[in-house]
């Protein structure tokens, strides 16, 4: 089957799914999200961002202020359905940490944090192939996908991320088409 035909069929199907979504599910996706809840999770988001991109020989996401950036992006650059998914996901994750380890995420050990996030990666449909894309259109982006995308964006465009974990050249002055990569050389921060 051609990819385009497949997507078309899928979106027809998705339309059907949308109509048959239960009332509760529909409400959860389309309700006006309580964005003030994001502030409550500010510390949690800082911790999560640092689990995704930890400090190594370069600073981690927390030091780069990525938690606050994620909140800003969810507030201002994210559609309503994905916002609702994101807030619900944060609640789930906080609850999961409590029920699994009996303490908030922030007090969990690095190993426990990794276990928690791995659980949400597994259940959170992390791959945005064409199946994922068609799903996203109907149901919004899943919590984990939004989280990871914004953490990566926030980190790689931050000053510490761009200049220490990546290579940033503000004014290259020239273009050289063929350059042999030095061992361990980092990627360019901007294209």
């Amino acid at each position, binding site marked *: 089957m051609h990819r385009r035909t497949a997507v078309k069929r899928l979106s027809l199907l998705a339309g059907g799914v949308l109509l048959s979504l239960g009332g509760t599910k529909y409400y959860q996706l389309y309700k006006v999200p309580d964005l003030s809840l994001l502030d409550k999770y500010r510390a949690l988001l800082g911790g999560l961002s640092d689990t995704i991109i930890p400090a190594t020989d*370069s600073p981690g996401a927390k030091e780069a202020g990525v938690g606050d950036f994620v909140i800003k992006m969810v507030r201002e650059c994210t559609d309503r359905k994905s916002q609702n998914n994101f807030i619900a996901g944060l609640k789930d994750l906080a609850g999961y940490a409590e029920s699994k380890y009996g303490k908030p995420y922030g007090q969990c050990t690095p190993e426990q944090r990794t276990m928690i996030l791995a659980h949400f990666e597994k259940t959170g449909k992390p791959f945005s192939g064409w199946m994922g894309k068609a799903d996203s259109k109907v149901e919004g982006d899943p919590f984990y996908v939004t989280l990871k995308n914004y953490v990566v964006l926030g980190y790689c465009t931050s*000053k510490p991320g761009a200049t220490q974990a990546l290579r940033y050249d503000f004014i*290259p002055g020239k*273009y050289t088409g063929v350059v042999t990569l030095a061992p361990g050389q980092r990627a360019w*921060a901007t*294209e």
Partner: protein
Amino acid sequence: MGAPQQDIHLNTKAKDQQTYDAIVIGSGISGGWAAKELCEKGLSTLLLERGRNVEHVKDYPTAFLNPWDFEHRLRITEKDKAENPIQSLAYDEGNKLFYVNDREHPYVQRHGAFNWFRGYQVGGRSLTWGRMCYRWSDLDFEANAKEGIGVDWPIRYKDIEPWYDYVEDFVGISGQPEGLPHLPDGQLLPPMEMNFLEKHFKEQVQKHFPGRCVTIGRVANLSRGWKGRGPCQYRNLCSRGCPFGGYFSSNSATLPAALATGNLTLRPFSIVAEILYDKDKKRATGVRIIDAMTHESREFYAKVIFLNASTIASTAILLQSKSPEFPDGLGNTNGLMGHFLMDHHLRVGAQGLYKGFMDEYYSGRRPNSLYIPRFRNLNAATARTDYLRGFAYQGSATREGWNEQSGMLPGFGPDFKNQLTAPGPWRMWMGSWGETLPYAENKIALSADKKDRWGLPVVEIDFSFQSNEQHMRKDSQQCAAEMLESSGFTDVSEFDYHAPGGTAVHEMGTMRMGHDPRTSLLNSQNQLHDVRNLFVTDGSCMTSSACQNPSLTYMALTARACDFAVGELKKGNI
């Protein structure tokens, strides 16, 4: 947007003057040229621009910002999407300041979608243009006549060739001469480099597809210093305005030259409501403007008028200019004004992954891509039975960065970070820009009831691509995939995003040139058939669209028409 500036006269000695030798309407890529040429030929020239002033360097506030200096790291917001559903398809946080607001400047998409991207400011879209510059040839100028499509161009390559030379010499275009008859070489500055994989691709295409030429783009970025501008610093941030003057824009090049003559008066915030017409002299006498800030009307007069407001806007101005002699718009005696709107069709092609060359990289950010000139329907050997005309590709190879890799790499933590920040695999994409035939039903008209905030009728657009374009797209998609596959790419995928008209931002037509006043609006010198001192030299004049990026041709036609107009003035013919 910028602070309100009223009644700016950059040439103070001309303050409050009402009469000039020439009036130029619009300060974008063709209007800038008209102003420069007319001023340099000694005409006192009033340049009217509907938007705010943008002074070279001084008014490029985002040009030196780092990614982390932007609140949303260059992403657009949900508010952008809601308030600017069209313009936000094109802008980012860094160049948004050079796009109009859709709510302030509405238009109607009547039948079919049409993205009308606009920049209402001094310099217009010459600030944000793609900078690709390619000459046309007689393959393009003769096509309509040979195939019986539309009307014949009233000019041939020999008519425009010296003017290509003339404008290229001033603009500064880097590129590689290739000796192709259908894509004539011009006055080219040194070409930019290809990277390792692009060179490999070029060799493979040469081997497997003789007749398909892979060259580096010809681009109005200065590969060396040129006439006090540049060179390009390889930042690839052109659309924010370049503080180094690394690329050609009205602001960096033509307007400073025009101002230097002392003959230019630049008046921003001046919306042209109509062209004034004297029925006895059969001449345009001037323009009536509405001050965008005060909403007051004013008139200015001149011997010659150049209309360069951009394809759709120029035609709208003439349609608004109604008189007993021209009840359907100035010069619109045959009813064809507004028809035969064209845009290139694009966002179709293929992309693929290359496994290997993992030790190869590049440095600097090249504001340019590869170019594969048209190779279909050039002659009997390349003739197609399923469509007329042809397409050219742009494309480039890069190693995936964090942005491309982030959605693909599983996991998180130190290993994820390490992979994310290392150069990823090589990937190449190529997409075609294809010729669109002129169709009468693709048109613009004025709304009978909807008006903008200045009381002027909004534009209605009808546009759709037809079967010739659809067949061409299928071929382009397949050719792209076969070139990638033959060059050793894997995971090759074809794409066709069915982008609506306007997406190429190459609007052309609506006042086509032609020999016959019964079937065209402008003559071979871009003079309105019915009003000889009124010239239209922006994209409106185009009789067909070819597949080359059109700005260079507008510039050459403008310089040519200015030369003719001044000659006619001196002879007393206009």
